[in-house]
């Protein structure tokens, strides 16, 4: 039997899992799938088979807009010396808990 091979790889999808109600979805990894429906099923099989989650998102990796390493300096360095942006300059009364 001839085995014609597809020259087209399946697209890449990024997978986000919500571990339980009240938490936000966290990025857990990526996978290949031919379309969104199958991506969701593959995500279920690969990332939640040990009860890791109660909700799944899959997003086409191509749809993610990422910051560029070239812009790293102007994007992130200016925040480095602005310690006053951290809420650490307040005296917190001893009675306040869970902060």
């Amino acid at each position: 039997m001839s085995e014609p091979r597809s020259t087209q790889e399946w697209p890449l999808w990024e997978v986000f899992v919500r571990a339980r109600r009240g938490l936000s979805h966290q990025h857990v990894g990526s996978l290949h799938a031919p379309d969104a429906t199958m991506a969701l099923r593959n995500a279920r099989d690969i990332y939640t088979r040990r009860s890791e989650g109660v909700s799944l998102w899959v997003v086409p990796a191509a749809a993610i807009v990422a910051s560029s390493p070239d812009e790293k300096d102007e994007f992130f360095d200016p925040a480095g010396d602005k310690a006053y942006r951290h809420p650490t300059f307040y005296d917190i009364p001893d009675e306040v808990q869970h902060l």
Partner: protein
Amino acid sequence: MSDTLLAPDVATYALRLGDDALVLAQRLGEWVANAPQLEEDVALANIALDLLGQARSLLTYAGASEGQGRTEDDLAFLRDERAFVNVTMVEIANGDFGVTMARQLCFSTYQLGLYDVLRASSDETLAGVAGKAVKEVAYHRDHATQWVLRLGDGTDESHNRMQAGLERVWPHVDELFEADDLERRLSATGVGVDTSTLRAPWDAYVDGVLARAGLTRPDASWLAAGGRRGLHTEAFGHLLAEMQHLHRSHPGASW
């Protein structure tokens, strides 16, 4: 259940359902590291492990109902071919992905219908196993459905191979719904399922998928039969040899 009179029947019945699950689990396990994509390796392995879990519960229960002290391992690894009572559909060799998906669609639709009714069994153990398994098998059927739709409605090549897969599996469909005396006795007492009642819903679901996929319902030129009586296809001996080899070579070996 009305226990002692029924116990041998229940043992055989649990063995049938357990053998179906065990043999299909073994077949699906053969795909690991061979599937078209890494993602499918994992999907098929998950399905195989669901089935293996069902098989363990059912074979353990079969051994207990039989009352001769046989464990799940004894039943899985130390019986010969003629003592296995699975339907022949589950032993069909994997073939290409089209054959496997055709087998998955046909069998999981049958198994889902069966477990759905068995959930209300008067036998608590069978009802419990079915209640847990029904969610697993609903996913198995969905997985197969998604693939049959995509392959049937895909390229000429995928369509032809999906159709060929259906042709390969179809002669084994009627056997799924063949009720015998034991099954009729058990369904009359509310323990088992009269599989002949599952045929119409099975046809409706599978025909619906085939229509959406642009596939043609095959006409079987021959019909398989006899799995429940221990009559199996040639491929089955090879499957058993591989499955049982380790246990028979190293009796009592454990992890």
